[in-house]
């Protein structure tokens, strides 16, 4: 990679592994291991949206949580803006905790029901010592207006809002500390179809305005294509394909990607789905690493 390209990388994930223990014997030793993420490497460039798709159990959410350091990883490293986050303790990590924020799937369980909007959005500011005193209320109100809510909503509680409005509060909360990078884990899957587009458009506007970089984890493949610049496809803990999003959809190389894309029901009664079925690889098969098949298009195919 050239030097300028190197500088352009905000998040650099190298051979990330996260194993969970599934069973323990009487001495507390792990007897069975679940390899949720098993050697994943990718880079996210400044200002881009990297989509991560896969089915349940593929490890896509686990990758997101590792980047947030909600999990300590088993092996590998994550570099953020040139700094290795892997071995940092909680204290050294704190400035990065501000710069890396998250938005989760369920706006019903990710907001504390006992806090009003002012406190919800103000809490991260408190933790990182931003906008003290009088400025606070103004800053929160400005953010609220920026995400399409009103100043009158400052003293309301989460139960008074609809799902889409709650997700807007979550977004305002994430943006309250002026982050560089936001991990969006299925941010729209709990929302109604007509509201999803509102939130997606807003995420795009905010990205342009604040120069944000997104990791967008989702299972809705048509929405992921819409929002992402590049996409990684995960299957059983590994990336099987990474490419620019149009390239991935127009010219998929890995049989799993082909199967996944052909399974999306097309919202057009004249277009018949020609479904491609992939039976998968045997559990113990040797899994080939990602190789560059065309410029910027990587796939894990045997030589």
């Amino acid at each position, binding site marked *: 990679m050239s030097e300028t390209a190197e500088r352009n990388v905000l998040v650099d994930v190298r051979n990330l592994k996260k194993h969970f223990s599934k069973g323990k014997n009487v001495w507390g030793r792990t007897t069975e291991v679940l390899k949720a993420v098993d050697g994943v490497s990718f880079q996210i460039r400044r200002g881009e949206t990297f989509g991560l798709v896969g089915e349940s159990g593929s490890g896509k959410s686990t990758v997101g949580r590792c980047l947030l350091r909600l999990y300590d990883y088993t092996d590998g490293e994550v570099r953020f803006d040139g700094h290795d986050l892997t071995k940092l303790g909680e204290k050294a990590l704190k400035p990065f905790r501000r710069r890396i924020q998250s938005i989760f799937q369920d706006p019903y369980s990710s907001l504390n029901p006992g806090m009003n909007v002012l406190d919800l959005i103000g809490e991260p500011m408190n933790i990182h010592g931003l906008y003290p005193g009088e400025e606070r209320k103004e800053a929160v109100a400005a953010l609220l207006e920026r995400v399409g809510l009103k100043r009158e909503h400052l003293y309301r509680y989460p139960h008074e809002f609809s799902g889409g409005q709650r997700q807007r509060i979550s977004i305002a909360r994430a943006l309250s500390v002026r982050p560089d990078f936001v991990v969006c884990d299925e941010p729209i899957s709990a929302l109604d*179809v007509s509201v999803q587009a509102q939130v997606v*458009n807003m995420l795009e506007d905010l990205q342009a305005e604040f120069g944000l970089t997104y990791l967008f984890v989702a299972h809705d493949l048509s929405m992921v294509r819409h929002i992402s610049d590049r996409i990684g496809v995960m299957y059983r803990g590994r990336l099987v394909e990474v490419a620019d999003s149009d390239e991935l959809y127009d010219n998929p190389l890995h049989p799993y990607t082909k199967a996944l894309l052909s399974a999306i*029901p097309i919202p057009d009664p004249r277009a018949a789905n020609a479904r491609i079925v992939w039976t998968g690889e045997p559990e113990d098969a040797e899994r080939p690493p990602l190789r560059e098949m065309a410029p910027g298009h990587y796939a894990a195919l045997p030589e």
Partner: protein
Amino acid sequence: MTERLLTARDLRVSFHTRDGDNQAVRGVSFHIDAGETVGIVGESGSGKSVTARAIMSLIQPPGELIGGEIEFRGELLNELPERKWRKIRGNQIAMVFQDPMTSLNPVKKIGQQMIEVIRRHRGLGQEAAKQEAIRLLREVGISDPERRIGQYPHEFSGGMRQRVMIAMALSCQPELLIADEPTTALDVTIQAQILELFKRLKDNPDTAVILITHDLGVVAQVCTRVIVMYGGMIMEEAPVEDLFYRPQHPYTIGLLRSVPKRGGGTRERLVPIEGTPPDLLDPPPGCPFITRCPHAMDKCKELPPMFHIGPGHRSLCWLAEKDHPTVEEVGAGEGNTDV
């Protein structure tokens, strides 16, 4: 020659809550012909699932069917006593729910559960029922059914459990199968398998299907006719081609625009429907879409009747009235001027 199977007339369902009556379904009328596959699309709170439950007489307190008629093969169902209802439910009308994990008994073998249903509803003996269960599992695409019927639900994946539920529903050879979001909890590749099953059912003239979903892709791929619901009412009803190529109701048009287009490149801006669905505790008096509609006029404060547009195509919108300009003529956004 089509045969009328089910007619719903002016169905009304309310949920009595502490804050008042939530009017989930507000005057819904439609029909289902024998053998056809009809999609009911809508967002959460549109009343689509409640409508299905009303047809099955499964509305429970605090919910109440406060008005309307359900006619099935010339018989009024809503006047039947619960005892007679049990015979119809399962035998003639069967239902499949969203979550296959909770609809199966976890401590009984799959075969046992199926055989029980088949014996009760069809009066077959143990052995004959077992053979029928095996045949049905094979039909819904489960390999090695002879071994599978000896297994428990936890040994089946989510997609297979949903197929078992469909096999059980089909085991009584119902004339109408109601599937409420049958693929929503499943991964796309598994969803595709279940949808192929529904496509095959579409060609079966003995079973009509009502497929309830929020996914326009599912509707386009599987249904012959579509009913669009919003705010407890039917907004538009049309043959599937008409709905996708000649939508008339502003809500349907908005819904179709708010999903990413196939083949549309990345970063092509989505067109959302602004605002939020109406509060059904206190719904607006006229059109339920009035607060979000780009074409809303003064007249919309009065509820329009269903206007007939073409064969099988109707729309609950003043724009569909004879002398009114069509939505295309008005153009996006211009309709707001006379509010």
